[in-house]
């Protein structure tokens, strides 16, 4: 791969996401931060599954010249990523609905306007 660019991107995405979660006060931005971390982890999983010149492990309409099964990609990382994306959608939906409820109660998206202290 080109100078490990995907791995550097992964590290950057996770760092940016953690920064947003820790230092941003807006609840929506915290939710965005978590989504960014998740994208970083998903990208990492997908990058692991990369194989130069590999094709998808589908036997019908296989391009000619591909050795079976050596030329195929093992689809486990993709399956893991898909699961992780689905879970991510559920978590994001739940998180946004909590933020909505909190906005209704507090009339503010600032995390410092919280009620539970000490």
């Amino acid at each position: 791969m080109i100078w490990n660019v995907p791995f550097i991107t992964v590290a950057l995405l996770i760092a940016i996401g953690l920064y947003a979660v820790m230092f941003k006060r807006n609840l929506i931005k915290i939710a965005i931060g978590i989504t960014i971390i998740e994208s970083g982890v998903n990208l990492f999983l997908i990058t692991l599954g990369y194989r130069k010149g590999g094709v998808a492990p589908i036997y019908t309409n296989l391009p000619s010249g591909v050795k079976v099964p050596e030329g195929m990609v093992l689809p486990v990382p993709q399956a893991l990523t898909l699961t992780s994306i689905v879970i991510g959608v559920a978590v994001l939906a739940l998180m946004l609905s909590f933020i909505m409820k909190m906005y209704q109660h507090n009339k503010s998206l600032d995390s410092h306007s919280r009620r539970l202290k000490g």
Partner: protein
Amino acid sequence: MIYNEAIPAILIGLPLLAAFITPIINLASRKARNAFVIAVLAIEELLIILLAWHVFTDGIVIYTMGAKNPSIVPLQAAVPIRIVLEIDGMAAFMGLISCTVAMAAGIYSIAFIKEGNGKSRYYTLLLIMLAGMLGMEFTGDLFNLFVFLEILSIASCGLIAYRQHADAVEGAFKYLVVSNIAALFVLFAIALFYAQYDLLNIAAIAKVMQYTQLDKIALVLLVAAFAMKCGAVPMHFWAPDSYSTAPAAITAMLVAASQASLYALFRVCFTLYGSLMDYQTIGLAIIIFGLLSMFIGVTMALPQKDIKRLMAYHAISQTGYMLLGVGVGLYLLGSSDFNVYGIKAMEGGIFHIINHAMYKGLLFLTAGAIYYRLGTRNLNEMGGLGHTMKFTSIFFIIGALAIAGIPPFNGFASKLLIYEACYKVSPILSIVAMLVSVLTLASFIKVFHSAFMGPKMHDVKEVPKSMLIGMAVLTFVIIFFGLFPGWVVSHIVHPAVMALVDKTAYINAVMGG
């Protein structure tokens, strides 16, 4: 014995299936729905006892989802890709805790959660939570662990926010953020393992583990993530908020849920890494987590005015005892002292897990009973409840004495084991542990005095029967464990500790000799 090899799968599958049948039965009748949920929880309890019996007598149980010996092994993969459930002594022990607490919480909720406002969905989430806990404890596959971790945290967040107060939603949001970040750390660590070994199975990874630089990073990520999820100081900030705002029955479940994370932490330390890692350093780190949790938890608990918040801080402090006991065991692992008192320390720590789930669950349920009658959690507004709520106050005394480590209740048995074993390592550990225990007693005397003693201030009745039965289930276990600690330690706790320590047995059960 009526034992069937499919029991592990049924234990996870049954609550998942029942969860989605519950709203349908609710259309017919509410009583039928209650009966159905309680029946499912009772069957779960029965099955886990059967399974635990089998595990404690015959050793590790393996259940493979999919073919037992698939003929096609994919090229890059070192072992066949399938999901394995592996139940050793420790997993069965944790399963017992989850099922018992879930049953008590389920019975308690019949009267405690008022009808309307989606009570059938409440039960749905409760059953999913149970399935998530059992899945986390039984699985032998790292990615599966991640999936169940997320199922557990999503279901518990929904339940924390069940009442939709501003406070409850805030507690749920905090818990969701923390547990999701923890889960993503876990997923990242899993990806690191997959990158190196092409494996996801815990036993298979443990077998070929090289302890490279990447493995060390993964270890740090996993320990941090699970310590965050189990509410150890300094990652404890979510615990008081979500424990105090959730409905009481759910708080009892949350205690069991944090212990499932604690189990995952121990599983990673002992089975996945085991002899490879530098256990003195990791053990010391866990001891320090434990000491900090114990001390900060109890000092934060003392000034609280909200009864459930106070108990939540005590939950943090009690988690410290478990970390201390098991941390001392980990610290000594491999040295000649381990067989002398390392084992004792671990027995104390592991025994404390089940004890804590029982008495803390009971205390949260009594707090819920007070809230049910008075509608407040503020200690200053309570008083004189002992005149009318007699059973609740008896249950509260038993729970409070158990948590403070007073004989003949169960907290005494496990705390004594921890004191004795830790004293051999360093007297300071035992002194801190005892000091924390005294402070715990002090703060519960305060609660007992301000809630139950004094002149009659409120004209309230005793809580409904189903709530009393829920509390009685846990009280029975507390008294039983308190009266026969020797039997419990040698028949349940010791096998669990040995299963945790014996890494090769866990690996061989899956990989073969």
